[in-house]
């Protein structure tokens, strides 16, 4: 996805209030995309032109979703305001990004602290399987520091013309009638730490809510709730000789002791490791699960010092309403985290970009007012592109994270080279590849065999000590 800087014809006819900037043309400015859903109002062709100014859009939240959205909006000629509460926020996050994100978002390679090329999956009975033998030399999973990545994306948005505001979004007044603006109430900090901040208001035409799992924008549009998992993580600095083992290796521990419905992990970060676990159903026992995870990795992190303890919610599924009027949710606020692996950074950035593209296109580079139908095209495109990925991961989680026998079968299956190749292909490039049908059949047979064996062993286990 190369971004070619082109001055469009529309850009040349800019009004005086606009800053001069390059506008990116992803597609030619063509007739509105026709929606085959008869329920939708035909888009912005009939919307009035916005006179005297460009379309104003506010992006609430400056993480990967907000940064990507603001950049695309600004490049598209829309007047963009990015409101972020804490500019140096060190987010509790796994920090893994797939290979395709580096290319699609033009990330500089020095953002990536570490390239993980090997993964180890460890079953409840400590059967350890190495994954990653099928990776080619240029393929890796990038580990980033969130504060570095978020700052980079925000800076890029700002360079393209977005206004970055350090403030906390409070609430939003919905417009009375069709074309009236949304009034946002926020507290501006302006870089002063610990200060009370100045209460301000802003009028915008559309809002993108990218403010994360506890989104206030979602609350103000009654988007509904989702189930969420709690991820608990400790950052541990381990001795250098132990750090060598984790040079480019990440570990995943599965088992009832580690988590009843998720996994425990040891991920290498810039100079320490992050040891954590998560759960949806037994949130109260999270500390116990964390101790169990540390116990399982015992020798490998012996002698380490805990630097930081952090926890955050992970949405399990999208909110019931991701869109209302001219307000759209993206990223964690919308609930775009995959099951099974809990991956969210790439999908946040991608959804921010997709939503911004829909706004840019619907408003014809900021010249016309958008309406709900334009934002719905983003939802349509998103669901169509990524629904298979989400569904497959959901099925995997339901089948393989159910119980210890299922987890044993899972780890056994991961030893298979075909499985590894398919897994990495779909993770690194975010496409569900069909694959060889003969191998698929063999894989299905092997999966059933593993599940049958593991369940037979469980029945034997139940006979002992009954």
């Amino acid at each position, binding site marked *: 996805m190369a971004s070619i800087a082109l001055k469009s014809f529309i850009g040349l006819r800019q009004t005086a209030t606009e800053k001069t900037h390059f506008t990116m043309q992803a597609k030619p400015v063509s007739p509105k995309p026709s929606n085959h859903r008869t*329920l*939708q109002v035909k888009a912005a062709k009939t919307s009035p032109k916005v006179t005297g100014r460009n379309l104003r859009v506010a992006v609430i939240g400056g993480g990967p979703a907000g940064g990507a959205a603001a950049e695309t909006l600004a490049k598209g000629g829309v007047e963009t305001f990015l409101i972020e509460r804490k500019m140096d926020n060190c987010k509790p996050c796994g920090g893994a990004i797939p290979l395709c994100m580096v290319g699609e978002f033009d990330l500089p390679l020095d953002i990536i602290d570490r390239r993980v090329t090997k993964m180890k999956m*460890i079953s*409840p*009975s*400590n*059967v*350890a399987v190495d994954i990653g033998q099928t990776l080619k030399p240029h393929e890796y999973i990038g580990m980033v520091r969130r504060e570095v990545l978020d700052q980079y994306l925000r800076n890029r948005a700002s360079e393209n013309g977005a206004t970055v505001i350090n403030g906390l979004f409070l609430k939003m007044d919905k*417009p009375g009638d*069709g074309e009236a603006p949304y009034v946002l109430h926020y507290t501006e900090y302006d870089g002063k730490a610990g200060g009370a901040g100045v209460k301000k208001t802003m009028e915008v035409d559309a809002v993108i809510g990218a403010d994360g799992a506890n989104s206030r924008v979602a609350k103000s549009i009654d988007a509904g709730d989702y189930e969420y998992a709690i991820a608990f993580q400790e950052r*541990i600095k381990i001795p250098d000789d132990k750090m060598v*083992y984790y040079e480019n290796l990440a570990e995943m521990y599965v088992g*009832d*002791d580690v988590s009843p419905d998720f996994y425990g992990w040891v991920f290498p970060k810039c100079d320490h490791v992050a040891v954590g676990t998560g759960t949806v159903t037994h949130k109260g026992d999270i500390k*116990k699960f964390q*101790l*169990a995870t*540390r*116990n*399982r*990795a*015992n*020798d*490998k992190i*012996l*002698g*380490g*010092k*805990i630097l930081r303890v952090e926890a955050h919610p992970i949405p399990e*599924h*999208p*909110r*019931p*309403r991701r*869109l*209302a009027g001219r307000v759209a949710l993206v990223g964690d606020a919308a609930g775009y985290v995959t*099951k099974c692996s809990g991956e969210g950074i790439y999908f946040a950035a991608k959804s921010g970009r997709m939503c911004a593209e829909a706004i840019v296109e619907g408003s014809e580079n900021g010249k016309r007012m958008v309406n*709900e139908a334009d934002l719905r095209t983003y*939802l349509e495109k998103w*669901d169509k592109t990524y*629904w298979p990925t*989400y*569904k497959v991961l*959901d099925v995997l989680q*339901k089948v393989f994270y159910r119980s*210890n026998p299922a987890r044993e079968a899972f780890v*056994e299956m991961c*030893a298979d080279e075909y499985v590894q190749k398919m897994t990495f292909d779909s993770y690194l490039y975010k496409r569900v590849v069909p694959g060889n049908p003969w191998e698929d059949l063999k894989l299905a047979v092997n999966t059933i065999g*593993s599940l*049958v*064996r*593991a369940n*037979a*062993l*469980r029945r*034997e*286990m139940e*006979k*002992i*000590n009954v």
Partner: protein
Amino acid sequence: MASIAISASLQTVCSSHQVTKQPQSKPGARSLGMKEATCVVALNVEANSLNVSAQEKSALRIQKHKAEDAADSKSKDGLRGAELSAVKFRDERWKNGTWDLNMFSKNGKMYWDGIILAEAKRRKFLELHPEASMNDDPVVFRSSIIPWWAWMMRSYLPEAELINGRAAMVGFFMAYVVDALTGLGVVGQTGNFICKAGFFVTVIAIILIRRTQDVGNLRKLADEATFYDKQWQASWQHQNDQTGKKI
């Protein structure tokens, strides 16, 4: 770190005992050891450091041994051969992370049942006492080395017998009833499409519904399979509800 590991394993043992609902009362020494271990854990976590004094380590280890022995003598009657000195799983047939197949052969024949039993014991042990995964002592055993017929003979024959018996009984009874109602004998029934379809459905039902709770389980499974889809479609349903409404 070691003491946290030990106290963590103590905690896990206690909680997993609760999870598996084993009807045993914890010996007094053990609960005392647990409380003290919890205090130590809390202190260590607050101090934000995993380095502990040797004194604490040795004190905890003694307590753990006492508690461990007390627990094991009560719990693992079947595992007399596999008693341990530390928290690790020990068995004379478990070598280098896998089962030594030579020790399972009787009179030159492989005794696969023995391996299945031994592996079940090992997994049970590990469920109750989760062990750290060691790099220098990896587990390389794969259950796929046990041939498929060994699994069948051990676990699935009784159930297969049950299902076949049920199918035979239902089949005979239905053949009689259909003959009485329609006059078609068994030979005539096999030629009739409706009878064949009914036969197919009956066989599937007998295989899937073996216990009374299977009906509920299957319904829950169907719900589960479609729940995620419903969550994703929720945004579109709201749109349909609000056609023409302006916000």
